[in-house]
């Protein structure tokens, strides 16, 4: 990162080689569209290039930092598509979220393990709503419409879910 901050292009290239597939996966997971995801991926690395000097080792891992940039950029793009982008009902997303066993095992080996465990301790509905919100940046209003549930109810599911999540992660 310090080398990138100093304007070393070879260092950016190295970072790109090591992380672009992961970040492209993040963009694709959020946008479900290759062309748009590649546009966003390009923006992400240019953002990294410009902001590498804001990165503080010890406060976050490089991977967490750049993944957050990829998520934020992708969600910005998704939101820019307008409300039509949110027409997909939650049921379909649940099916899309179904991961085969081998994949789950692989995932569990990664550092998201604790969070994954804590999310799975929530009831299915709350877990789905939190995951959907995280990966799509959809507002309470849209979630409520999609689930045909009053906004206040969705809000209290999420707030209660987040509280449980926090308690679980602190254990």
């Amino acid at each position, binding site marked *: 990162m310090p080398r990138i*901050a*100093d*304007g070393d*292009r070879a260092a*950016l*290239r190295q970072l*790109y080689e090591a992380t*672009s*597939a992961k970040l*492209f*996966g*993040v963009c*694709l*997971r959020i946008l479900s569209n290759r062309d748009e995801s*590649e546009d966003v*991926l*390009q923006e992400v*690395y*240019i*953002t990294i*290039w*410009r*902001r590498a*000097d*804001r*990165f*503080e080792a010890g406060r*976050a891992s490089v991977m*967490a*930092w750049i*993944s*957050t940039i990829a*998520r*934020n950029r992708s969600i910005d793009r998704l939101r820019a598509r307008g409300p039509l982008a949110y027409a997909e009902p939650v049921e379909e997303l649940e099916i899309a979220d179904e*991961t085969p066993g081998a994949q789950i095992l692989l*995932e569990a080996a*990664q*550092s*998201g393990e*604790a*969070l*994954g465990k804590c999310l799975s301790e929530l009831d299915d509905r709350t877990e789905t709503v*939190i*995951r959907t*919100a*995280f*990966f799509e*940046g959809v*507002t*309470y209003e849209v*979630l409520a419409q999609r689930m045909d549930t009053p906004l206040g109810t969705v809000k209290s599911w*999420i*707030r209660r879910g*987040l*509280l449980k*999540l*926090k*308690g679980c*992660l*602190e254990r």
Partner: protein
Amino acid sequence: MSEGPELSEAEAFAAEHALGVLDGSERARAEHRMARDPAFAADVEAWTARLTPMLDAVRPVAPSASVWSRIERALPANDNAGGGVAFWRRAALGGFSLAAASLVAAVVIVGQRPPTPLAPQAPPPGQLLNARIDTPKGDHLFVAAYDPTRQAVLISSLVPPGAGAGHVHQLWLIPADGRPRSLGFVAPGASVTLPVSTLLAGLADDRATLAVSVEAPGGSKKDGPTGPVVAFGKLSKI
């Protein structure tokens, strides 16, 4: 820990912002609040850190080979964009905005600030002084900044919340004269704004050091630290 029945309103709002469920105007309100309320910014950062591991489970997919060449072509344009890169590089030496306004703020807010070129030889009056407050071994425990305009020290504790029960962390300003003056307390994991008296404000310059001592509840009864000084750092200009 969080055994209470609910998240506080502020923390719930921070968590909702990190999760991404706020609508446009609420989101703008959250970002605005992050810029001026370090405690809130720290909450957003903590929630982002809690939720981001969800991305670990995403499967990598190789992008087209053309993406890298597009990135490379776009880079020189950035270098020439009104000294923006050079500005941020200088600004980063202070590091305060990243630390106090959080990672998320850096991603969300800093990106929207216009790249105003600063004259490095003539810092404006009222410039922030920053300090990383580290242990002698180099562990990074607190981030602080002195804001001469507000006459206050903004400090964020990176000590895990709930750590060091039965003790308090007391912040000291040690000016050029070497005599420590207490500024107040900062709880583990908290971000607070501690006012600095007008008398002391004149001594808060780049010759001063900030230090944190571990004290019994209520703090040191003397003019200086009673307990061990665990971390310190010099105030310096951005």
